[in-house]
């Protein structure tokens, strides 16, 4: 009895945090402040939004009208495709956290992740209906689709900036400055990762060839 009640409260909390994403879309400054400071958001809801975003991306490939999206299925790797969304997000969170902790940002890593995911809400919100809509238009009406699609991205970017501003308690100028700095940090991380992997692989190759050489001589 008590367990089910607890579960009910729990799921209600999850649903209310998920519903709070919609509030964030329309009232970004207020919403993202409450998200962390009033604990109106949850990581579970953030994960859900991220999952929906990835799902929207994948479903676009298959279900959007070919007028807008043409997929060469021979050349698609679904795991790489999913990684192309998750990997930059991970880099963004880590890069942003690493920079802002040094410059009195108030957000913790989990909060940055949560706010970033909440900021993505417009994407699945607009793109899922757009998938249906794309199958109802001709080439001449394609502009509607393009405008709406761009709108979802612009909206999400605006939310991203608001989210970072509220979480770190920064001014707008500082937020935008640090967003660019984060992008630079992401590039640096990519560079280091590439360097790391190529070093490791040449190191491995080196030892493998030594091993082979020894085997040949024996």
């Amino acid at each position, binding site marked *: 009895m008590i367990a089910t009640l607890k579960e009910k409260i729990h799921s209600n909390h999850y649903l209310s945090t998920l519903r709070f994403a919609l509030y964030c879309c329309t009232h970004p400054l207020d919403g993202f402040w409450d998200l962390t400071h009033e604990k109106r958001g949850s990581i579970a809801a953030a994960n859900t939004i991220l999952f929906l975003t990835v799902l929207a991306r994948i479903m676009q490939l298959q279900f959007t009208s*070919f*007028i807008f999206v*043409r997929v*060469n299925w*021979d050349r698609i790797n679904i795991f790489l495709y999913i990684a192309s969304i998750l990997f930059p997000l991970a880099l963004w969170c880590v890069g942003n956290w690493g920079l802002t902790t040094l410059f009195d940002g108030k957000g913790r890593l989990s909060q940055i992740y949560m706010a970033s995911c909440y900021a993505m809400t417009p994407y699945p919100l607009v793109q899922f209906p757009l998938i249906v809509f794309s199958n*109802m238009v*001709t*080439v*001449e009406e394609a502009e509607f689709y393009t405008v709406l699609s761009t709108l979802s991205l612009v909206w999400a970017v605006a939310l991203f900036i608001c989210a970072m501003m509220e979480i770190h308690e920064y001014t707008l100028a500082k937020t935008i400055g640090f967003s660019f700095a984060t992008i630079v940090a992401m590039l640096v991380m990519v560079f280091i990762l590439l360097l790391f992997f190529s070093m490791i692989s040449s190191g491995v190759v080196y030892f493998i060839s030594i091993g082979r050489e020894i085997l040949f001589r024996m």
Partner: protein
Amino acid sequence: MKKTRRFGALLIGMLLTLASAMTALADEGYTYNYDYWGDVQYSPDAYTVEKVYTAVDMGLEGRLQSPQGLNVIGDMIYICDTGNNRILELKRVNQDTIELSRVIDSFNGAEPNTFSGPTDVDVTDDGYMFICDGGNQRILKLDMDLNYIMEFTKPDDSNFSNKDVFTPTKLSVDTAGRVYCIATNVNQGLIKFENDGQFSGFVGATKVIYDWTDYIWKRLATQEQRAQMESFVPTEYDNVYIDPEGFVFVCTMNVNEDDLDSGAADPIRRLNMLGNDILIENGDWYVIGDIEWDDAGGYNGPSLFVDITALDNKVYVGLDKTRGRLFAYDDQGRMLYAFGGAGNMDGYFRQPAALEHMGHDLLVLDSIDASLTLFTPTEYGSLIYQAIEQFQDGYYTESGESWQKVMDLNGNCDLAYIGIGRSLLRQGRYKEAMDYFKLKYDEDNYSKAFKQYRKQWVEEHILIIFLLLFAVLCVPLLVGRIRKIKHEIDTSDYFELKKGRQS
């Protein structure tokens, strides 16, 4: 599966080679096309070599010497045997026999009465022969009994300085007897002569293509550096052909690879009377021959068109010098097929120089091999032509059936899908047409079909749509109203009073 299929193809290939030594073309990879993604898709052969004719087959002693020009009218074939300063008149007597009817090496009525390096010949329907006699700096007009009628010489125009030698290389004559010719070192376009021999100007001078970075470099460079740079000059044309509708097809080899990729270079152009390019390029790819090229096997660079010919069904074929290939396009600029190659076998060329058509048959003149190759369409090629012609004549249903036969022979033929779709569209079967267009990413035709389908669908379901709209708009209103009434009843003073009285 793939392996077994390949093995099967190999077996069939071997059987065919055994069956007849003539089927040198049965090997995979002779005929191909590009799909939507730009990948090469091999197809059944559209043309097969009927025969390759050398001087011996034509009944001549000694070889042809680097023949350059070719012309076909009716069943007569004219070859400019440039190195031997003569023109050969041949007659095609049946499917695979060509007989020499006469050798033209002189004429009556003017001096000199011989040719010097004739490079092109054009014979008109009304029985005149126009010859590019470059060595003698003239274009000759003769009648069919080889009597001199007139000549076209260097125009008396300020565009031509006195020092320049006038060397006409290629020409084509329209139905009114006007001559369009190309001369070496003339880059203002085609030289146009009226039928009385009067020079009437240039046609189709190309716009100079340059980008602004080049321009800035030129501004910064010194005089000497500038002299070494490539100068911005209009392109020279390499060949000219007047199609059955009277438009002038020209091709140029003076193209660079970046312009080809971006579509800025038009190696094949179709000029109207004003000299504007009206070639339609609605295909997935530009009309540039091969869309991908690499440096392999000693053959580098993009396709370079040396000649072009246009069939009566608006299909035009370009001849590529680089790899010895022929590229056929329909009137929308979509590639029908490409075939050929460089080599010594039948159906391959060493240096293709000229291309002509006789009905649906194609003739290619090879200047190094000194031979004339006669191609005839296979069942596959004929079906494509049939489908195109039926569509042009308005037999849409039949055209769709022909395209279906093409598809049965080659499932990778994109045009077959679109052809069937267009036929279905004309028959009003929109939903089916949409499926075919969708498969080959033809968005414009798909939209045409979809627009009609959507209209039909809305008309059929108008009642449901109205009911739904009504429901969406009115139900919340109704619910709101009912709630309001209920609320008013619940909170009305009447019950309050009653309660108060009771207590």
